């Protein structure tokens, strides 16, 4: 099968600052200019997708994710490289961007649908489905300026999603609407994929990316730093952020720091040890025994009551166990710059046989951002479990009792 999306050595350069280009420069769409006045939002990125594949693009703000979506949707054009898309593309990027506030829901369905590239006849055919999906039946002939923001977004999603696209771009928009609507959106995306729609999904939500995507592209400062499985991609992303933190090139955000996995390195995790019951370092644990995780931390700045946390995942990234000192009700002291500490977690390995991934991190006391985070500090193996399959050992105890025919079944 020929690829559905091809992105070949694509680069995109933007102008920095506000100055006006001369007329001649504006007309020369390509060519050499003063490099200091430009900034590469995307640098030599390539990937290719087969029909029906789902690609997740992850990376911090400013990594070039949105630029890639804009390039794919032809809103903007590459400075270098080539993009090929086979089939019809639909973008769930700015829901309802083409709505006119004074026009009714009905009029906007037609207007927005044609902006997205549908024919009038096509919209008419899907009209009832769109209205039904958006759940705006009663307000169909009300101007959209009187819609709630939820209705607005639902209608926008419904129109874009009913285009029967061959390639669908999705950018975080699923954060809108209530839980039920989000479920509906996910179900709709799954249905499109099973029909062979290629999906490109940009998100900060690692769980959603892991769930939806076959493969992941990790972007960092305009460059592709990783392409591969979702679970490995999340680790590559975390490592890239850690590297940036180490180089002290991080701005602490006002909010959303945790979601973007920003690290500040006020505290640094220098070593993580996994010990068995007898205190010996190991990577192989016996099912049902105790284990100790020791996290060695150095403080580069004064930090009060940091939170330490520990996460055990399967190798494909599903969380098995996630705990923090805060949730356990443990108060940690104030630390001064230059001090060191160890955080010790004692665990009962109630796991069945298999390979697991251990992650540790330390977080500001208000959960606003990470100090340091090791998405995968190490992998370990569990062996020796008997009599069960799966992940967790729930310690089943059996008894089988014959029922006599004269007894009543309870």
């Amino acid at each position, binding site marked *: 099968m020929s690829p559905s999306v091809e992105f070949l050595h694509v680069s995109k350069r933007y102008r920095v600052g506000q100055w006006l280009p001369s007329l001649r420069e504006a007309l020369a*769409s390509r060519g050499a200019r003063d490099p200091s006045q430009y900034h590469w939002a995307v640098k030599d990125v390539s990937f290719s997708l087969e029909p029906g594949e789902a690609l997740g693009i992850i990376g911090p703000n400013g990594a070039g994710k949105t630029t890639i979506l804009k390039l794919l*949707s032809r809103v903007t*054009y590459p400075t270098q490289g080539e993009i090929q898309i086979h089939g019809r593309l639909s973008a769930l990027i700015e829901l309802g961007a083409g709505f006119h506030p004074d026009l009714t829901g009905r009029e906007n369905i037609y*207007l927005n649908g*044609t*902006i*997205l590239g549908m024919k*009038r006849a096509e919209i008419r055919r899907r009209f009832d489905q769109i209205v039904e999906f958006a759940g705006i039946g009663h307000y169909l002939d009300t101007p959209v300026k009187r819609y709630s923001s939820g209705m607005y977004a639902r209608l926008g999603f419904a129109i874009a999603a009913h285009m029967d696209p061959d390639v669908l771009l999705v950018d975080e928009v699923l954060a809108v609407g209530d839980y039920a609507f989000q479920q509906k959106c996910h179900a709709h995306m799954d249905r499109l994929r099973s029909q062979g729609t290629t999906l490109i999904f940009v998100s900060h939500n690692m769980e959603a990316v892991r769930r939806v995507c076959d493969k992941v592209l990790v972007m960092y400062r305009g460059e592709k730093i990783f392409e591969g499985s979702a679970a490995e991609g999340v680790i590559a992303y975390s490592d890239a952020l850690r590297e940036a933190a180490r180089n002290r090139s991080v701005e602490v955000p006002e909010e959303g720091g945790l979601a973007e996995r920003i690290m500040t390195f006020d505290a640094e995790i220098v070593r993580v040890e996994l010990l068995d019951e007898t205190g010996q370092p190991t990577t192989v644990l016996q099912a049902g025994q105790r284990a100790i995780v020791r996290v060695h931390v150095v403080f580069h700045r004064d930090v009060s009551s940091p939170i330490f946390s520990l996460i055990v995942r399967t190798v494909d990234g599903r969380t098995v166990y996630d705990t923090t000192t805060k949730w356990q009700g443990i108060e940690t002291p104030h630390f001064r710059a230059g001090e060191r500490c160890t955080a010790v977690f004692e665990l009962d390995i109630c796991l069945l046989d298999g390979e697991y991934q251990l992650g540790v991190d330390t977080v500001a006391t208000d959960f606003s951002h990470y100090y340091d985070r090791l998405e995968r500090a190490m992998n370990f193996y569990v062996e020796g479990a008997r009599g069960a399959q799966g992940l967790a050992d729930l310690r089943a105890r059996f008894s089988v009792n014959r029922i006599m025919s004269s007894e009543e079944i309870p």
Partner: protein
Amino acid sequence: MNVSRFLGYQYGDLLLAWIARTIRARYKQSLLGGLWAVIQPATAAIIFSLIFTYFVPIDTEGIPYLLFSYTAMVPWTLLTASITDMVDSLVINMNLISKIYFPREVLPIAAMLARLLDFGIAFLVLTILLLFFQIPMDPFLLFLLPMVVVIQLMLVLGVGLIGAALNVFYRDIRHVVGLGLQIWLYASPVIYPVGRVPESLRTFYFLNPMAGIIESYRDILLHQRMPGAYLLASMAIAVAIMALGYVLFKRLELQFADVV
């Protein structure tokens, strides 16, 4: 619908939807609505009639001055209104351009075509005036009229596309265009007859494509005579400007979304 299928243009339905949206938005919350399409050219024609009938009498080959100037003012208003709307059409929809892909020329072309409704209304009043002043009509020549309108639209399209695209980069363009349209009015035979232009300058004068176009409207509607070679010259220039405008627009279009 049928029109778009006929044009074979994938975004034909969008063009129609956008024209409808533009017209609806224009007359929403407006008391006089479509009447403005007449008030605009009629006011100008009446003012110039007062000046050129009473203060500075001017020879208009026996045609009442009001009719003489209104005949030119109707196509002239189409020109200025559509070019002005076209120049703004991209800038006022930048939020759309920076977010969704669709062929960008849809916006200025829709802005132009939406003004055809006003032109139609104003032309209806012109027809009434022609009947009132008992100007005879030549049915054969009337077939030429759509051709003149098409030539004018090609010219408007070219100028409007250039103005719209440049206005995205430099907002000065909107003022330049406004000023240019004022100067253009006096360089065209709208309020005076071509006969007042010195013979020696005529060829040069007709390099302005609007001169030939307006003169042709008058030839057909007021004098029942075949337009002269100046209409062909206007057509050639209009086609050239349209081609230039389209190429320039397509070239600059690639950067529209980056200039926010």
